[in-house]
């Protein structure tokens, strides 16, 4: 057995699972597939190295339960969650449980591959450095109070129009603030924002 980092794909949908596998193969990323969380738990011992690409919603044990189970068993493996569109609550919970990332379906394959590659290359060293921490705090400092408000509400899983109503501004303005937040934090997705927020410890996450 090669001790080469490998991507473990856990998804109950045969087609999506197979497609992801084919995608990994096309990039020469070693991959292994599992049709359920239970299936993975049965076999994971053989693959200490690598990262886990995990569908959140599955019959039986779901993605989040698997992650918690791995934590309980002290198995440390970077996890990227795949969620349905707009399922922020689940994403936040996943990140709090230690997932390093989550991507929303339908996703940008390029983005996914980047994340997977990063994950694989860093998989032996998943601890963030002080340097990174300072960098992140500096980025958060640059946010205006309004941008910060928008970010907080985003983290609560609220949609633009809901945020607009709560802050009594137009949805268009919310979008502008949101774009600015993304830019200032060098975030490419909602998951980046969640990760930064978690990492900084400055935000209350439900």
């Amino acid at each position: 057995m090669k001790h080469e980092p490998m991507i473990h794909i856990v998804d109950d949908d045969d087609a999506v699972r197979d497609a992801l596998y084919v995608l990994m193969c096309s990039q020469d990323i070693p991959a292994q597939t599992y049709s359920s969380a239970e299936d993975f738990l049965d076999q994971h011992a053989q693959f200490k190295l690598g990262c886990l690409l995990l569908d959140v919603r599955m019959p039986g044990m779901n993605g989040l339960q698997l992650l918690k189970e791995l934590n309980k068993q002290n198995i440390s493996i970077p996890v990227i969650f795949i969620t349905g569109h707009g399922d922020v609550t689940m994403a936040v919970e996943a990140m709090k449980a230690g997932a390093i990332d989550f991507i929303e379906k339908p996703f940008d394959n390029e983005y996914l591959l980047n994340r997977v590659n990063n994950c694989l290359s860093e998989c032996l060293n998943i601890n963030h450095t002080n340097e990174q921490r300072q960098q992140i705090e500096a980025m958060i400092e640059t946010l205006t109070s309004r941008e910060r408000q928008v970010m907080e509400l985003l983290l609560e899983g609220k949609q633009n129009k809901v945020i607009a109503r709560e802050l009594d501004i137009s949805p268009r303005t919310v979008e502008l603030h949101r774009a600015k937040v993304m830019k200032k934090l060098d975030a490419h997705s909602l998951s980046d924002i969640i990760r930064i927020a978690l990492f900084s410890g400055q935000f209350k996450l439900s």
Partner: protein
Amino acid sequence: MKKLKQAAQGDEAATPKTELLAELKNMSQQELLQQFRLLQAEIEVPIDVDGDERLAHELQVYRIELEMQNRELQEAQQELELTRDRYADLYDFAPVSYASFDAKGIIKNINLTGAAMLNQPRANIIDHPFLKWVSTADVNVFFRHLQKTLQTDSKTVDEIQIKNQQGEFFNVRLESIRSGSAAANVFLCQSVMLNVTEQKQAQNEISLQARQLKLITDALPVMIAYLDADEQHLFANKTYIDWFALSPAKIIGKRAREVWEEKIYSKVKTYLNIALLGRSTTFDMDLPVDEAEKKYISATIIPDYDVNQQVHGVILLIGDITERLALEVVDRKRLLDAAHVSRLNTMGEMASEIAHDLNQPLAAISIYSDACRRMIELKKAEPEAILQILTDISAQAERASDVMRRIRAFVSKKELLLVKTSINEVIEEAMYLLNVELRSHDVKLILSLADNLPLVLVDRILIEQVVLNLARNAIEAMETIDIAQRLLKIYSIAEGSNEIEVCIEDAGPGMSSDEMSHIFEPFHTSKKNGMGMGLAICHSIIDTHHGRLWATSNDHGGTIFSFTLPLMAEEPDHEA
């Protein structure tokens, strides 16, 4: 006749004849015989004495002979008088009234019963004109009767009304014959007067009842007719007559084939035969009225038995259900509209689930094609591998279109379409749509579908809607309970020999009995955004399929919704 009358009245005077009779009676038979024999002996003795004495002796003999003859006569007459008295009694005390009229209608004699009927002493009747008691309206009838009787030898019968002294009216049947001699040209009209008042009343009552019956049957919206064993109409009510738009004369007494015409007769004949063979039969059918128009009827034919238990006629009860069916079509259309709106509503509520359902194959397609592109770009595309991926892509495209097809079928609006259907297939189809929702609510599904269930005649979409609706309610009912306990059970079983039952059971907290009693009412809802129409519509849908839908609590506090569907024993109403 006068003597009879005198005897009857007891006013006869004593006559010499009766005195003689009494004298003779006093003389003993023995004495007479003795006298006779003595005389005989004297005659036989040769008497040489003078002829005077002999002559006197002969005279004596004749006298005795005469007396004896006379006595026999008297006895015969007595017999006659006794007989006569008996006949007079018979005449007087007979239960029927007798009377004799002369040509002018004067009562010449009447018996006691007759006098009693007129409620007068006989003396006040005899030699009085009968007209005193005849109702004015019937005077002519009486005179014609009298005339006819006196002119012919045959019996004359008529009915007249008479009025007695008390003012009571009687209906009397006169049955009269002529008596008397043609030679003397004195005829009497001898009449029997029968009191037929009660009979007449009974007849009137019968005809009243018949009239009432006719009024009732005419007022009924059902066509009613009576046909005898030869299929002749003996009776038809107004509705029946009007339906055929014929005059009663063209129906009563006419055969069914004549009245109905061949096109109807040929269709009904089978059922008519069944009833004529002694079995009641009920059937629905459409009847051609003309080229463009059809009528729908619901008919019952009941055999009518005579005393020998033979069918001697049939009663036809026919309802024209054309209008009712038209109303049913309107009702059904309303239900179909409401059900359609409800399905659209359900799909709206399931939008995110449906999106997810579509997302899976679309995501797979997107990833596959991207992988393909990358393989080609990296120039490591094996044709076989590419071909395989393309096949997979195509399968996923098919999967997506399948989802679309199912959803489109579910939300489509069609006429009621009853087809022989496996209920299990319908349940599985509903579960297909429900799959994502089950996953997103972490509900475990247990399907327990009986094998080899007979087919049911249903509208697949409507029943699928019911199953989906009940299952979604069940899922919603379990929102508040622990994920591990969320269990949806659906089972199908053959219930008895004529229906199939489907149960949808949740493990939720259940309903109060009060709540349960209102759940099928329109606008009753426990949901924030619900219209409260879902269950009411489900109920109507199952009703339309002649099944039942109800809810019960299970042992663990949850709720079981059950519905039945009848097996295909009978054809349903006319399909739209």
